[in-house]
């Protein structure tokens, strides 16, 4: 019994550097996804991700406090404490998993957490939905 490969193509949502080096992804809707998902849903996902990354990299009172405290302890607190950024990354991982379960998997898509790609791209794997074509 020959099996079928899970043939898929991939779409890469690139980084948007127009605001500098902050982690932000382009919200431009890729043409390959037009048949699979609504533009608004996709944009909402990417925008939420961008907001989460912005929260991670936000320069504010809390991050300054963390930075100053770290400096005073010769940065040894990084060895024992989870940084704000890491906490937000966990939140992002959870959000992506949730999005995959609720929205993307039923449509034959899979989001890959950008941290696994060095925060370069949001990789969306498109799985061929043969069951639709075969009926």
């Amino acid at each position, binding site marked *: *019994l020959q099996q079928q490969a*899970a043939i898929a193509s*991939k779409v890469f949502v690139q980084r948007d*550097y127009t605001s*500098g080096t902050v982690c932000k992804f382009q919200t431009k809707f890729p043409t390959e996804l037009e048949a699979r998902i609504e533009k608004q849903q996709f944009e909402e996902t990417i925008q939420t991700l961008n907001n989460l990354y912005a929260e991670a990299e936000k*320069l504010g009172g809390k991050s300054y406090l*963390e930075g100053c405290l770290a400096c005073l302890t*010769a940065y040894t607190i990084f060895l024992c404490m989870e940084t704000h950024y890491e906490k937000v990354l966990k939140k992002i991982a959870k959000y992506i998993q949730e999005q995959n*379960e609720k929205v993307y998997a039923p449509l034959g898509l899979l989001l890959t957490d950008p941290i696994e790609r060095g925060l*370069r791209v949001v990789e969306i794997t498109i799985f061929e939905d043969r069951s639709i074509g075969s009926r």
Partner: protein
Amino acid sequence: MKNCEYQQIDPLALGTPASTPTSTQCAKNKSHRPRRKWEVFPGRNRFYCDGRIIVARQCGVLPLTLGLIVVTSVLFFIFDCPFLVTHLTICIPVVAGVLFLFVVITLLQTSFTDPGILPRALPEEVTNTERQIDNSGSVTYRPPPRTKEIIINGEVVKLKYCFTCKMFRPPRTSHCSLCDNCVERFDHHCPWVGNCVGKRNYRFFYTFIVSLSFLTSFILGCVITHLTLRSQGDKGFLQALQESPASVVELVVCFFSIWSTLGLSGFHTYLVASNLTTNEDIKGSWSTKRGEESGNPYSYNGIFRNCCAVLCGPMPPSLIDRRGFLPPDVIPRTVASGSELHPFMAKNDTNMCTQAPKKLLETVAHSSLVHSTCTSATPKTALVTQEFPFNSVSSMLSPSNTTQVPLPAARDNRRSTPWTRPAVREGITQKGMLDAYKYQVS
């Protein structure tokens, strides 16, 4: 039941299950130890403590730096401090001790921390990027180099394509030829610390050089005070030197290093205040007029804000997953097959094949099974359908209509799921997959 399902996915594995050692697997099975990603890291780095510590391959003069600091400080504590404590105050060794700790800790952190290395692009990304370059007229293509222009805060910034890492470098990223890595916010490769200085360890480096300047100045001051006090009275300065020869050593070391440490601290304070890197400053990337900060799109236009952003900003995570585990048998096969599969791709495998996507799969499969019209499917088919909602159920029902693409042997059935990225499988490149797809559609 699960094993049966996996064998259905990979028919070649029926004959050659992953547990059967092949010639390439012998070396792997010898150790029976899952390998960590640092063991196959492509850059020129060395790892210690099972991937916890990363240094450049050429450690430069780090041992010399550390040696000088430790020896000078120890000599100071042994030979100068007792005199100074009795004649002046106990605060002297306390302050020196704190500074010494600061210096050593920040030096080790600068040397052993990932400076902000960017993992190299995976083959699918590379294919995608190259396709975009070929198709798009707006991207400048001159062999070599490839560049892409973007606008950041009103300034035109050129992103260069890195041929080693096979990606367009983000802004402020540079490729270090010594470490063979692209490093974010690349400042410079410092031989004294034996590592690159980049986004993640710049604050450690800055604290190191500032505290080192304080320590050097402090020791120099204390030694001169010591010798002066000793030479008071009838004793001459020369006799004081003879009585405390260690102080001579400290004097020489501190005198020669104070110029460079103070100079470096001053220079980097200027860089921090203008939110520049050494690399940008040397290249003159943003200098319009001498001493002007204007033109730098990354500056927050305020010295205090820039300092806070650079030194007290959030600590970004390491993007290279040094201590993550590799799937046991991806690497030797991919190397042997000659494909450019990157070991870091396996991270996706590991993460994708953990409980979350499996649960996801089962959830979706259950829902698709409910909707499926293939109620007449045999138990075997139903089994397959349950696991592979997106595989062709029709192929089971009407095999003549579709072309099956046989999979190569999976090396580890436990990991093999339809969600596994196809390129991980040996011999199948993305192009091959897409070609097969096109063939099936036609």
